[in-house]
């Protein structure tokens, strides 16, 4: 059977059901999420490529073992991001090191979101570049950083972030609002230094 050709037209949920019958289909799911999750791991953990790859393999195996636990009412992407988040956290606990890595290009991406955000738009001026913003992100409090990454870089909505972090949507709203306030303060400081 040509799994690669067939999986293009299948939804995540269909692929989960098929993977439970034949692990070859799981290859389709892994390919669909490999680069997204690698990027996410890198952004929230700052692990080097090799360690991130090891962690990703561990995540894919965990996901496969727990496929029967996947709740079809949930988005598969939220579920796999949740497992990734949990694995990164437990890895972080083991190695006691967690740095965030946002490059200049990604900083630009966040910048474009900020420009549309009434809370932060006033702070954006010509001196704020993607590079500056990636630096700002590095200074944002760790507890707010991930929610910013999920919202602005992974482009998840409140409900998806709620499913990934297992927090009520109202808490996600509060976290994002505090995260913006935190960025607001840091950008102000950065502007003075520029």
């Amino acid at each position, binding site marked *: 059977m040509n799994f690669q050709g067939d999986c293009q037209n299948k939804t995540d949920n269909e692929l989960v059901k098929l993977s439970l019958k034949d692990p070859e289909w799981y290859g389709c799911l*892994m390919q669909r999420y490999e680069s997204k999750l690698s990027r996410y791991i890198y952004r929230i953990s700052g692990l080097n490529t090799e360690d991130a*790859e090891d962690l990703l393999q561990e995540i894919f195996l965990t996901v496969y073992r727990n496929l*029967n636990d996947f709740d079809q009412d949930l988005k598969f992407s939220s579920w796999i991001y949740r497992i990734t988040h949990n694995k990164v956290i437990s890895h972080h606990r083991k190695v006691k090191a967690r740095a965030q890595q946002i490059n200049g290009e990604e900083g630009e991406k966040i910048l474009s979101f900020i420009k549309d955000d009434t809370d932060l738009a006033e702070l954006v001026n010509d001196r704020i570049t993607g590079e500056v913003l990636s630096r700002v992100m590095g200074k944002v409090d760790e507890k707010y950083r991930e929610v910013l990454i999920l919202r602005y870089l992974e482009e998840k909505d409140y409900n998806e972030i709620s499913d990934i972090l297992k927090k*009520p949507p109202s808490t996600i709203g509060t976290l994002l609002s505090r995260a913006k306030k935190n960025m607001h303060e840091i950008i102000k400081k950065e502007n003075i230094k520029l």
Partner: protein
Amino acid sequence: MSKITDSILNTIKQKKIAPKPRWHFILRQVLLWVASVASIIIGSITFSVILFRLVNNDWEFINYLDRTPLTHAFYTLPYIWIIIMLLFGLLAYYNAKHTKGAYKYNGYWLVIISLITSMAIGGILYAFGIAPKVHMASEKIPIFKDFMYDRDKLWMEKEGFLAGEITEMLSGVGIFKLTDINKKDWTVLPDEEFMPVPEFFILEQGAMVKIFGEQVSDDTFKAIKIMPYEMGPGVHKGGGPGRLMNGGKSMQINYLIK
């Protein structure tokens, strides 16, 4: 196919890794729910006993105890039951929090809801007379006896206080034979200042009473105020041998709410 995908598919095949069966996850969820419900039920029973203890806290004798309401509350609050109720409330919250989809709700609300549910069900259990049975059973457990305020001791040791079971009604209002908690027999007579007993309470054989008054001889006690030793739904109110005269078993006889 990428290197990672390829490697994982090979691992799955070589090590014959299979997804955990569905029942494994269903069982976990069922156990969490059972544990949540059990915690709420235990919390509810506990709350019914707290109510029982608060009702039977001798508030009506506070003037004779030389205590302010605050100090009396401090001495007599059923701390161990309160702690148990809070622990099971938190356990219910913890279990509920781990059920699927519970994270959508605010944690504080889950705590408040689990405690309010325990209190509401506990109120119903109290009304159905469950609390005295649980209270009596708990008194047989050493740790409960050690940590609970000892009412029996107060009523048997403080001067002017007496508690026990009416064994025989004699002719005249407030005249009866009584066996106290320490199994000593007394004749109780009304004092000149005797206060009428409340309407809801009938002095009859088998009723456990608490009396404030004065000991006038070795086996005679003059009563100023007589009240039921325990009140509330499920308490034996007399009409037959009470718990002292029936080896602690009589609480099961005539145990209906009167």
